[in-house]
């Protein structure tokens, strides 16, 4: 399960004419995956007077921003909450994961091989099985309701996946490199700082994207741990969709706004996203 993207490269294969028929199912599949995007955008760009459920498949007659403006007006405080929570969560997670991965791959201490699977198990647990103690505990340490508590929770439950990703990345770095530094008298921290950290950038990108995406898309922790002032955007969007007051067209525009940051990252840095997905294809 440690397949990398390099194995996804196109290979030369003798081509027959009939193979081009395969574009037919491919195009149908593409339509299936794009339908929700189409509806979000076609609806989002319509003017208010043009919107109706019966014409939802029609293209907008012009480009208007009524729906996006309305949705942004409703969602912008929560968008800000999400950013304020997700960025620290992703950055802290990456450093924690990097340190753990480094120690667990290059400085194995007795018992490290038992610790690792125990850490990994943490990324599969259904969070319902820890939710009640989590809420009680966060109340006790006065981190319930706010964004800093949510950051802490994402960092801690992110430890397994971030550690795994960095450990796999560092495992591929020749141990000789670390040993050479050791012989030259560098200690563990110096080796990390001068040798490991500078070559860790690709792994950092993978983990930053991964943690950014999961924290941004999270709903369960957010809905249980934050008060309405501090809701991240997923909770606000769900609330918007559940209310009778806000029209469906605004919900569509709001959905697009919510999806945009992670979608943008996927489009720009898709290779790293895929690498995260495959390297830790353990993760669900």
């Amino acid at each position: 399960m440690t397949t990398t993207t390099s194995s996804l490269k196109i290979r030369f294969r003798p081509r027959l004419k009939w193979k081009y028929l395969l574009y037919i199912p491919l195009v149908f599949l593409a339509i299936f995956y794009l339908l929700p995007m189409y509806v979000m955008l076609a609806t989002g760009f319509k003017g208010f007077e043009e919107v109706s459920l019966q014409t939802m498949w029609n293209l907008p007659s012009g480009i208007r921003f009524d729906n996006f403006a309305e949705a942004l007006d409703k969602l912008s405080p929560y968008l800000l909450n999400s950013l304020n929570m997700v960025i620290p969560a992703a950055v802290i997670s990456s450093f924690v994961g990097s340190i753990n991965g480094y120690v667990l791959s290059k400085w194995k201490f007795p018992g490290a091989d038992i610790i690792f699977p125990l850490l990994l198990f943490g990324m599969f647990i259904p969070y319902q099985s820890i939710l009640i103690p989590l809420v009680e505990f966060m109340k006790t340490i006065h981190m319930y309701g706010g964004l800093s508590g949510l950051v802490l929770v994402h960092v801690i439950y992110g430890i397994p996946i971030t550690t795994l990703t960095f450990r796999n990345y560092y495992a591929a770095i020749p141990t000789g490199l670390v040993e050479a530094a050791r012989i030259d008298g560098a200690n563990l921290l110096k080796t990390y700082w001068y040798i490991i950290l500078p070559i860790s950038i690709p792994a950092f990108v993978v983990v930053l994207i991964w943690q950014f995406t999961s924290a941004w898309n999270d709903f369960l922790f957010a809905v249980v741990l934050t008060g309405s002032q501090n809701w991240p955007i997923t909770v606000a969007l769900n609330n918007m969709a559940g209310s009778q007051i806000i029209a469906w067209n605004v919900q569509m525009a709001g959905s697009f706004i919510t999806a945009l940051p992670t979608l943008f990252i996927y489009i720009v840095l898709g290779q790293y996203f895929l690498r995260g997905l495959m390297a830790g294809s353990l993760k669900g």
Partner: protein
Amino acid sequence: MIKNKDKYVAIALVTPSIIAVGIFVYGFIAWSVRVSLSAWKGLLPDYTWAGFQNYLNLFADPRFHIDIRNTLVFTIIFVFGSLILGLFMAILLDQGLPGENFFRNLFLFPMAISFIVTGVVWRWLMNPAEGSRMSGLNLLFDKIGLDFLINQWYTTPKWGMAAIALTAIWQMSGYMMALYLAGLRSVPEEIREAARVDGATELQIYSRIMLPYLQPVTLSAMIILGHISLKVFDLIIAVAGKQLALDVPAIYMWQTTFDGLFYWRGAAIGTLLLLSVSVLIIPYLIYTLRTETEL
């Protein structure tokens, strides 16, 4: 080899993470199990012993029966739907057609999106309204002459879960495609060539050679999908809110705990979810780590 001082530094560096996971995963699991055996109902914690009777009550609870049935329906459709679609797409993309990267990225993009977004959009695509109020996919089917496909989606009596599973397939099948494609690409080209030389058709190559190669991928994929379907929560909430017909253990847990204040019951459901996930995951973890080459 390792200097003593470095050994202590190494341990000191990972200790905070170990303690954090120790408390937030294992400590909380134990705490949750304790709550599940208590009589805690209401705002204030109450650890009066109630024992396994709590679990017996839960197993006798008609709502929990609905949850189990719904989870089964969802799991079967979602797991097999995603696997078959994922494999199909992987085989299509394995033919080396121009534009492969474009399609691959397209099939995978829903993985980057929140279940809440998916749910909200599909809720309107799967609008069950009829007649002149018809909209969403039903309207599309009506327009392109596929009337027989018009249905009530997630409001279909008894089978609404299938519609929810469809949205989950939309979201996750691209991931399965990526896993399968990587698996297909790891089959040495010489093996295919040899089979071609021996006169095997492309179909035979896939059914006789590639599929057996893909078995480990299928196994991991089933475990990944299976444990996701046990945890499904936000997708249903975003499509349909909290409805008994579409209830699953994760929603019941949430509602009974935080709306109904039946903490014992919430904890019991959480514990049962953990047990079912563990049955899938623990053997998988042991197997994966054991086969991993010594790093």
